[in-house]
């Protein structure tokens, strides 16, 4: 009895760990996105400082590829939009994950109690 519960408990703990990992992963991704957002914001502002006489390059792999200024601006704007979308996506994802892990934690604690009870019973029997 106690062993079955212990097995179950172990499995659940494993799942819970996985979940925690997911959470921390998405948190770090979100932070990365945040920094990218800041960076792109700066790029956009600095692109606004330039005029048509300036040449803009995009580093692709090892080469600098020449780009039109307007095009560059549009690209950056698009990228900003994308990043914002991603951030929102991760936000909701995080909320979901947190909720799930919370539920899981409760389940774990109840399981643990069960296990302890079972253990106590078996000990008592023994």
């Amino acid at each position, binding site marked *: 009895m106690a062993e079955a519960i212990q097995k179950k408990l172990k499995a659940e703990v494993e799942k819970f760990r996985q979940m925690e990992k997911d959470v921390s992963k998405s948190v770090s991704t979100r932070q990365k996105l945040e920094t990218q957002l800041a960076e792109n914001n700066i790029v956009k502002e600095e692109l606004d400082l330039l005029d048509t006489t300036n040449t*803009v390059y995009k580093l692709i792999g090892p080469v600098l590829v020449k780009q039109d200024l307007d095009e560059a601006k549009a690209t950056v704007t698009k990228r900003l939009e994308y990043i914002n979308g991603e951030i929102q996506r991760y936000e909701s994802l995080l909320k979901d994950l947190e909720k799930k892990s919370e539920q899981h934690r409760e389940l774990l604690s109840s399981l643990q109690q069960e296990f302890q009870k079972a253990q106590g019973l078996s000990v008592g029997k023994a």
Partner: protein
Amino acid sequence: MAEKGKLSNEHLGGVVRLREEQEKVVKDCENRVQHWKKVSGDYEALNHRLKTLPDQLSYEITVPFGPLAFMPGKLVHTNEVTALLGDNWFAKCSTKQAQKIVDHRTKYVKSEIDDLLKTMKNFEARVGLAKDLENISSGKGDFIDIREDSGNIEVAVTKGRKRIAHKPNSKPKLDAILDLKEEEEEDENKGEDGGKRVGTITEEELWARLDELEKLEQQQDDQDRLSDNADMNGDMNDEETSSSSSEEEKEAALPVNGQSLKPSWTSAPHGKLPPCIESKAEEDDDEEEGNGLPTIFFSHTMEPKKVRINTGKNTMLKFSERKEQHSKKKKKNGLNGHSHHELHKISTPVDIYRLFVDVKNGELIPRKSILKSRSRENSVCSDTSESSAADFDERRMIGRSFSHDDATTHSDTSDGITEEDSPTAVPLHPASRFEAFSGTVVEKDPMPTAVPHLTITPPALPTIMERKQEEVASDVAPPKEAPKRVSKFKAARLQQK
């Protein structure tokens, strides 16, 4: 005791951990600030270099060639740099533009540093607070008994802490400590006294509030009674009884005003005079301000005449004095009388609504909305509004019998009326206050017969009067008139129907 000790220990542990976490945050902030400071320094150097770079056409430099070798070289195109904007974007630009970009970045860095500093300061303050908390809680150990003695005091202490916590930035830790200690000392010395004090204060307020409510209730009762009277007594004569009963009640309710209630009208005016004079003086400067809420009421209304006519006995003196001072402000005299009463009456927005009444089936019914235009027949405004006043004037012209002020303008009429009417009214009153009303009644009776329209008007006037008188009654003597007038009005209405 044991429990408390445990609690404090747990509390202490929590505080320690809190402090540690906060210190971590502060350290992190420090590191980041350090980093940004370095970045800022780099940018400054870069800026300087960019400034001086185009000074010469070319520079002799040693070019690093791999990790080990350098070779001599020449730096040309000194006004041409390629700047990394971020996210792998590059821009070829002049040094001037590069400087602009650098400026932009330094600004960003500065804002970043500022933010970090702010956060750091915030958390430093919190750390200080946590330290204080720690000290206090550890110090608590010695004074455990004290703490336990006053559970309430503990609460108070926590409250104090919370308050301090709200302004940790502005308040140095020392202050917080001092405050806490003081509080503790107070608690020790006075125990529950502080709490009692608070309680008493609130109690006083409570009583004041209760008194207020009581007054309101009485007023409402009076009002109800009046309406009841109106329903029950078609005639003015019958009202005497009701009015007397109301009188008695009012007296009982307002012992201070008891004298003024019973005496003849002349006495009432005297009692009122002082306030009126004051209000006048105030009005000279600013009519509305002097009266406060009530004044606002009347400023919009033309009715002063009506008011005076109806309440002439009460307000006579005021009017005459007023005339002397200002011809224009007379309108407000009636208002002054009101204001006097209203000052007591109107204490909440609800009270304002009470002044507006609909008359349905001879009963006074509070209006649901005072914004809607009322139909003349159904509704009466206790304080007259312009429109109603104008209507009244027109109708009076027709039904003239009771109105005194046809020809004169409002302001003029008001003066004239007050003087004229009041004297006439006075003779009538001596026997009883009701008699004055009886005169009014006569007027009304003709009206219904003459024209339906006219009939309508009289009711409106009476209602107004009654209302005012009610107010007056609450404050001073005149209550009896109100019932009569109401009854007249209602009687008229009933007759019509």
